[in-house]
């Protein structure tokens, strides 16, 4: 009966090394332990210098994303047992600059998200006296799936295009744009499409489809992007054939 499993963890301490190195740790292999539990065990008992992000340990905050044996996962939702007999190679999410050990720099991602205007855009706000914006359950289902995103960035690590094209706005940002485009209270679709149909937008995507596979919340960013391509192409033809239409 195997009682321990080894973790090969990528370490990067910029004050000490210019290239990451791997360090092995032996941790108890418990049935109810996820990779994050093993990292916490290491930090508490073996090596307090290990750096990584986590918070909710229940797949909600989206901060514990890492590469486990080359696949992006939420470490709080991935059991050690699935990798037995090991070893498990734990690395920071790829396609991002590494700050330290398992911590990546997400500032570029946040900039991209912001560009999508991820809030309800109105041409004109309805006066307060008119009451709230109404929404039927059917209208809610239109976008609900895309609103489940927790910004864990696993899709950015899974997407080869993000690695190849640093400017590409990326799966989560485009799915988030769709979340608001499909919201009946929103009127910002045109502004978002203006950005997304240009370079670095939806047409950069070649539908590898890996983003939707790794997504822990079944957001299906790949589907969101393909639907966007169809819509933007239709818009393009419309504005070509009906130049006088309401733009």
């Amino acid at each position, binding site marked *: 009966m195997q009682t321990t499993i080894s973790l090969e963890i990528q370490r990067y301490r910029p004050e000490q090394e210019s290239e990451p190195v791997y360090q092995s740790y032996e941790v108890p292999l418990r049935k109810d332990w996820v990779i994050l539990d093993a990292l916490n065990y290491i930090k508490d008992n073996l090596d307090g210098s290990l750096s990584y992000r986590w918070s909710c340990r229940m797949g909600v905050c989206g901060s514990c994303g890492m590469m486990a044996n080359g696949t992006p996962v939420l470490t709080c939702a991935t059991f050690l047992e699935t990798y037995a007999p090991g070893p498990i190679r734990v690395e920071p999410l790829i396609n*991002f600059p590494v700050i330290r050990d398992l911590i990546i*720099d997400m500032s570029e991602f946040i900039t991209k998200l912001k560009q999508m205007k991820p809030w309800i855009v109105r041409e004109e706000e309805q006066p307060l006296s008119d009451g709230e914006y109404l929404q039927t359950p059917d209208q809610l289902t239109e976008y609900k799936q895309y609103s489940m995103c927790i910004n864990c960035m696993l899709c950015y690590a899974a997407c*080869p295009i993000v690695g190849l094209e640093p400017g590409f706005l990326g799966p989560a940002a485009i799915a988030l744009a769709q979340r608001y485009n499909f919201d009946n209270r929103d009127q910002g679709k045109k502004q978002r499409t203006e950005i997304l149909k240009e370079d670095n937008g939806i047409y950069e995507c070649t539908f590898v489809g890996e983003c939707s596979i790794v997504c822990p919340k079944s957001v299906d960013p790949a589907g969101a992007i*393909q639907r966007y391509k169809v819509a933007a192409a239709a818009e393009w033809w419309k504005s070509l054939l009906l130049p006088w239409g309401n733009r």
Partner: protein
Amino acid sequence: MTINTQYTKFRPQRYQTRVPIFWWVHKWAHLRFITRELTSVFVAIYAFVLLFQLWALNQGAETYALFLAWLRTPISIGLHMVALLFVIFHSITWFNLAPKALVLRLGTKRVPDAVLIVLNYLAWGVLSVVIAWIMLKA
């Protein structure tokens, strides 16, 4: 992703990897992706073969017979068989992924992906039979 200098000015060095040129050989899913994209090469080659056949037809019965004779050479048959495999792979991947891009509605309900995929395959079958029938019988 590039480093935002605004934040890194007073901080230690970030470590950044580069994507290797042949990144797509390491993972089965990526290899499949590249293969899917390369089916387009065979699509284009066959479009040109078809064009060539029409050109031969245009030149008269003799040239057309020569063309048909070339089609019967083992090299041609081999190439066509390879191309056929790729083109069929294109059809399969295309039909399976199409529901991701196209959302169809009946009333307020979204038509399930599986139904769309089945409809795609049905259309493929029917059209193939129609093409064969027109080419050989009509």
